[in-house]
């Protein structure tokens, strides 16, 4: 009873600490972006003003317009500007995009779901592929298949996903015309829950998802190592001695114990994959948050750039937080060691 209470306190404490850590990270990122915008180098401001004045707006007015779109007032003293910026941001006001002249939140809300769509499929498929291949490698450890698959995993792990993306684009989209080369939805079909539209979306997302599958190479190596380690455990011998069927042993004993450690490594990749979406979406001209972030960077569109950066960061922080908080339920061993 006392023991139970103690463990409960410990886990509670750990969870609160973990949430505090996530909040701290978000705060640090907000502060960092405040500092970056506030100390916006003069040349960037200059570039923005020049571009706007080329569109027939006089420089003084242009400067005013840019300052209006930022949620930071450069004339305010720093502490006041900082407080204003934090409250604005927390209320969901990320300013106006200079290039698109629309609220940043609107642009992000419109593009983020597409990125999440591609990334979640890419993550799940590569995860399961990695587990399957890794289990096969472990099963035939030392055999020809194992050596072959290990070499495959090393090679595929050495291919940056954007190289694969470019190759897929060249061959599957341009040479053999199997897949669309850009865009994210079928043209000429009304958006809605129709078979044609949904399949069109999947069709457009197919190549970006395929490109991310290089991640399965390293996942399979991890799974292989885990499975081999589990195969050597004493409790497997005990299970065999108890006369359990091979199926029970492979699914309940080996697979479960080998997959569990993969869960954390999978979730850690989410951050990397979010970062990678910038390149991926550029290659396929797939309008998700990555492509928007890239356009904003090229256009020196500060509010949109910082908004996109912040949203990606917060998404990753939340994903990692959920991962850590749920891991104890997935793997009871972790609860004890925390």
């Amino acid at each position, binding site marked *: 009873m006392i023991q139970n209470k103690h463990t409960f306190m410990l886990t509670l404490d750990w969870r609160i600490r973990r949430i505090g850590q*996530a909040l*701290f*990270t978000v705060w*640090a*990122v907000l502060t960092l*972006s405040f500092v*970056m915008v506030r100390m916006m*180098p003069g*040349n*960037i401001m200059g570039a923005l003003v020049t571009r706007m004045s080329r569109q027939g707006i006089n420089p003084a007015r242009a400067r005013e317009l840019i300052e209006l779109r930022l949620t930071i007032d450069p004339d305010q003293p720093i502490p006041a500007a900082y407080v204003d910026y934090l409250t604005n941001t927390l209320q969901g006001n990320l300013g106006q995009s200079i290039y698109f002249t629309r609220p940043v939140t609107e642009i992000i809300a419109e593009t983020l779901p597409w990125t999440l769509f591609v990334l979640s499929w890419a993550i799940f498929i590569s995860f399961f592929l990695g587990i399957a291949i890794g289990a096969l490698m472990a099963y035939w450890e*030392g055999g020809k298949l*194992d*050596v072959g698959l*290990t070499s495959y995993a*090393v*090679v595929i*792990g*050495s*291919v*940056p*996903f*954007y190289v694969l993306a*470019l*190759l897929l*684009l*060249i061959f599957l989209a*341009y040479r053999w015309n199997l897949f669309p*080369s850009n865009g994210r939805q079928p043209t000429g079909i009304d958006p809605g829950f129709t078979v044609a539209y949904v399949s069109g979306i999947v069709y457009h997302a197919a190549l970006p998802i395929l490109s*991310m599958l*290089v*991640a399965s190479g*390293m*996942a399979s*190596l*991890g799974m292989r*190592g885990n499975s*081999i380690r589990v195969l050597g455990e004493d409790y497997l011998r005990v299970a065999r001695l108890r006369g359990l069927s091979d199926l029970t042993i492979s699914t309940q004993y080996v697979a479960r114990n080998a997959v569990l450690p993969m869960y954390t*490594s999978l979730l*850690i*990749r989410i*951050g*990397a994959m*979010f*970062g*990678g979406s*910038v*390149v991926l979406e*550029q*290659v396929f001209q797939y309008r998700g948050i990555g492509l928007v*972030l*890239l356009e904003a*960077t*090229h256009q020196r569109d500060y509010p949109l*750039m910082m908004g*996109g*950066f912040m949203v*990606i*960061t917060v998404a*990753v922080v939340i994903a*990692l937080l959920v991962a850590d908080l749920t891991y104890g339920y997935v793997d009871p061993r972790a609860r004890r060691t925390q």
Partner: protein
Amino acid sequence: MTHDESSDSIEPDGGAISSPFEVVSEYEETRSERYRKLYDAYVYAPLSIILRDWRARIGLTIVLGFLALGIIGPLVVEPTRVTEGPALVGPFENWEYVLGTDAQGRDLFAQVVHSTDTILKMVTSGALFTVIIGTTIGSIAGYKSDTPIDTALSSITDVFINLPGFPLVMVLGLLLEDHILGNPYAVGVLLSIAAWGGLARAIRSQMLTLRQESFVEASQAMGLSTPTIVFKEILPHLMPYVVINLTSAGRRVIFEAVALYYLGILPFEKLNWGTMLQLAYQARAHARPGALHWFLVPMVAIVLISIGLTLLGQSLDRVFNPRVRARHEKTTADIDESGETDEEPTNEPMGGI
């Protein structure tokens, strides 16, 4: 000195030693012997293990090849210029342009050679930065665990682990444009600014166990200073792990640098593999026939050096892994086929970037 002093006070029993603390080792190591020992432990043994492993042989060859390409190449190969040759010569068609030319008639082989040194500089500075910062912060936090220093360092580490590195580097690259133009070392550091968190966390947790060892207690009792204990006594035990991380950090720097230059975010003076890809994409080389090699040449370079680093990392793992070492000592070269790398480095960046 001590000898002279002790010989002055000859004890009644004729011995020249007054107390056990003045015992001088009978065995004196000459400098050459010491060097030979060091050579045995740090050069000969690892090399002999490496050379027995096909992975290591391939990896080492590739990495050394790129080093040669980066160091000697620029001295031998003339830099290319626009309209040096005809546009879009295919690879292996014309021996003057072995790997072909791009749409503006620039020799692709010369481009690759003159990119290699830039990339290698980025890799060196980036990998060293990641490993030095990660190791320093991780080991101090681990040694000082449960103190405010640890809390502060661990919180900073966690922030950096949670940050998606690539967007941060994009934004920072824009801000620091002027400082990183034409300075590959600075680019390498920039690319690694958010990459040391994982290593720091791993080093910290290993430090927590090592801290309990008796030799640490002995060092503390001897009154050695904390930096001496951490960096001279404990850290050498973690060196294998740190060295293996160098290769994966290097690979990550290449992937990210090429991606950033491909996206055209970082300004450049000299061509590199990333800008080659960018120029090819802008010239729509993916959509036109006969331009495939423009993409393939830099791609092969990236994949090849990355395979080299991966294999080298895996074999270094075997060099430092005592279990593998022991197995190697018992068996001979035929162990190579079994491919037993149970201990995969767990910190491989997997999403590619």
